[in-house]
């Protein structure tokens, strides 16, 4: 496997969705290619950093308005739910 093929398969590799033969081939390439190893590692960290980031807080005034709007709709149209 060459570097370009590694990039094409990168996403599926990180998803754990690669066929075992292709995965082994890719990992053999990673063992000898520093650049690809860094790309794979930093791409994995990119996903982790976003997944681990603190969610945007839902401001209380925004939440209040949501619930008020829903309540208003339910009162006006009670049979829909």
């Amino acid at each position, binding site marked *: 496997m060459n570097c370009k093929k590694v990039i094409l398969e990168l996403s599926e590799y990180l998803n754990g969705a690669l066929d075992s033969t292709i995965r082994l081939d890719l990992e053999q390439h990673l063992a000898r290619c520093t*650049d690809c190893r860094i790309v794979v590692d930093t791409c994995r960290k990119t996903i982790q950093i976003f997944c681990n980031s603190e969610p945007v807080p839902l401001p209380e005034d925004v939440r209040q308005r949501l619930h008020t709007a829903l309540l208003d709709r339910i009162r006006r149209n009670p049979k829909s739910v």
Partner: protein
Amino acid sequence: MLLCQSSITEPCRALLGANNLLSATDPKPLTSTVVRDDESKLVSAAKAGDLAAFEELVNRYERKIFRLGMNITQNREDAEDVMQDAFLKSYQNLDRFQGDSRFYTWLVRIAVNEALMKLRKRRPNQVSLDEPLTTDEDSVFREIADWGPSPEKKFAQTELNEILTSVIGELDPIFRVAFLLRDVEGVSTEETAQILGISEAAVKSRLLRARLKLRQKLNKYFRRSETQ
């Protein structure tokens, strides 16, 4: 209660929170026959007229839908509109929800459509979900730098959030939405394809491009300095 007592997760904290505004502002407290039960039972109860069940669905997902709206539109007012419209439309169309996907996925689909409409209104000539994708694998290797084991720890939480908001905001919406749905919201490839009305192959392609572009954008913040 059974789902939440042992380990309090974020949705459970919302469920257990005392600020149930539908109840708080209604003179008659709502009682649900479904108590903190799973999503499909809540949906069935809500369809049958159990308002507390619908309220619990709102409580469970309001933060996630707001976050999704913020991430796609990059604007708080738009995100609020997206959240309100998504819940109102889900309420209006609850009878049409067939249950062939998770309620949350259906809700996300509505929210994504609302958010994309906001973007199209704001930038009518710039937002298309159908524009062709170019591949440029070679550009990945233009800047290669190791980040070290925990690059995010270089920054305080607030600063990190600003960086993440900034870089995802720079991403083209077609890539941004694919990344948000798959990697942040944990929606499957198949469901993402359904939500966006594209093929699974297109989802995979967009996700790859999104991940690579984000990695490249984060590189300038996270690359290990020579003194490290």
